[in-house]
């Protein structure tokens, strides 16, 4: 088990390294420098700026310096928000993004598993079809359509909830629902499928044959087997939530990392964009690792050599 974790970590490090490398060189081949203004600066000033940001050194030295800085958690200054370093911006936005994504993930897991499992127990009933049709809508309607629609109905027409911002519980409801909905749908579909398969397994027939009450059979035997494959989906689900949070934060004006990322992308704030890509990459790698390890702990069939 421990050796498996170590091995996975050893794969994760080169992957992160590749992310940083691609991000760095992509920025350097970008046409136009980050300090190209409308006005031509005197050569002396230009040279000074270049020296300040090490732009006059050979590319490979710049790369080495950047790599060293990243390892110390220093992503350099933001080109647009002059008073902040990129690290500060990310540190500011992360708690908010974490709240949004964390609650959405929890919601997706709990609601999705409940819906999927109950649908499987009443297979081919009206309830089952209803849940699956709703799930299909959750998949087909992208969250950047769902979010404005929810705002329109609950925020503007009914005026029940605020349409934006991130202050107080009521402002969190709409963004979290909009973000979680597609993942709720995926989890529900997955859970239903694996529950139906489990309910047909021999050990369930045995449990029923020896006269266990139905609820014990389901809770103690079927749920254990049926929910396992869903656990391994939580990694991709978290990745999907991270991607989704970019657009949700933009729509609802939530001050998280996703919003900085989009603004940085639109303003060509290279250090900010690069840092966010690296941060997201690291986050996804870590989450996948955690989920895989969790899966190994839960499923006795998995053996790590």
């Amino acid at each position: 088990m421990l050796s498996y974790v170590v091995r996975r970590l050893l794969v994760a490090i080169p992957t992160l390294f590749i992310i940083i490398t691609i991000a760095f060189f992509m920025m350097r081949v970008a046409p136009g420098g980050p300090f190209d203004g409308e006005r031509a600066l005197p050569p002396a000033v230009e040279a000074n700026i270049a020296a300040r940001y090490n732009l006059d050194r050979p590319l490979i030295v710049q790369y080495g310096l950047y790599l060293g800085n990243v390892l110390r958690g220093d992503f350099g200054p933001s080109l647009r928000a002059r008073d902040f370093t990129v690290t500060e911006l990310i540190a500011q936005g992360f708690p908010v993004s974490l709240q949004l994504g964390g609650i959405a993930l929890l919601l997706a897991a709990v609601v999705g598993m409940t819906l999927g499992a109950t649908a499987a127990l009443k297979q081919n009933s009206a309830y089952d079809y209803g849940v699956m049709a709703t799930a299909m809508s959750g998949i087909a309607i992208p969250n950047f359509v769902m979010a404005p629609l929810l705002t329109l109905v609950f925020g503007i027409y009914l005026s029940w909830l605020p349409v934006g911002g991130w202050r107080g519980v009521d402002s969190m409801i709409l963004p979290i629902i909009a973000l979680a909905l597609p993942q709720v749908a995926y989890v529900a579909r997955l859970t239903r499928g694996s529950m139906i398969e489990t309910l047909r397994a021999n050990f369930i027939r045995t449990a029923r044959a020896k006269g266990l009450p139905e609820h014990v059979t389901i809770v103690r035997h079927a749920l254990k087997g049926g929910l396992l494959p869903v656990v391994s989906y939580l990694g991709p689900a978290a990745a999907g939530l991270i991607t989704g949070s970019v657009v949700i934060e933009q729509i609802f004006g939530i001050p998280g990392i996703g919003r900085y990322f989009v603004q940085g992308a639109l303003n060509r704030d290279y250090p900010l964009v690069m840092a966010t890509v690296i941060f997201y990459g690291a986050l996804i790698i870590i989450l996948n690792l955690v989920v895989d390890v969790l899966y190994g702990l839960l499923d006795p069939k998995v053996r790590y050599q």
Partner: protein
Amino acid sequence: MTDTPFGSEDKVGTQPIKGRSLWSDAWHRLLKNKAAVTAMIILGIIAILCVFGPMLTPHSIDAINWAAISQPPTLENFYIFGTDGNGRDLLTRVLMGGRVSLMIGIIATLVSLIIGVTYGAVAGFFGGRIDTLMMRFVDILYSLPFMFFVILLIVVFGRNFILIFVAVGAVEWLDMARIVRGQTLSVRRREFIEAAQASGVSNFNIIRRHVIPNTLGPVIVYMTLTVPKVILLESFLSFLGLGIQEPMTSWGVLIKEGADNMESAPWMLIFPGIFLAATLYCLNFIGDGLRDALDPKDR
């Protein structure tokens, strides 16, 4: 497609038995699937509307009518979807946006298809160290946050129509490569490959004539499921303002404009939203139907 390894035994009998090919079997199963057939019909209608509709509407995509700014849907002047904040006909814009979205969906899927099938077939066919190396590379790419690299790419090189095709296609080929490799591994050891090798067919021709046609089933299923992913990805980028630029439009751009104006002009959000969701719905149902029809495990 016709020279599948199955069905050749049928010719042994004295009377000619008309064998049913794998494909006609699958086709019949697909036609029995009501959801998939309905989805195909609706998708067909949407596609025809998007291709021919803009030629038939009385307004052009960028014609500005100052007299009808943010006009709600009305029969007058044939503004049945209303107009946007610049007085442009929304019906024409939604259909033109559909052209762009569908085109990106198809072209980017074809890009991913060509890269993925070639890569997967080569890796699976040669096997051994080449296979390990090639698939490890795919594994590494797999764990990268690609959406963000696409955005990075667009930030660096500017917004460019072709770049979006290439970027999106390059993201989606990974799954295709894995699927084709798996199929190739199971085909590689079959007798007809051995026969081809014995009669001196080159590796390139074996892959082209014998390996790839036998991987088509899962590839078609996966292709159908890739198109909605690509359309979604393009809309996502356009929604963030990183995709298609004015005066061209796509469903993502229109939804973005609609979301900005939804208080005063909700139809601007609703119509492109319906078209996008309906298309994604249909493609998902067709993909599911095809999988049921082509997957022998479920029979």
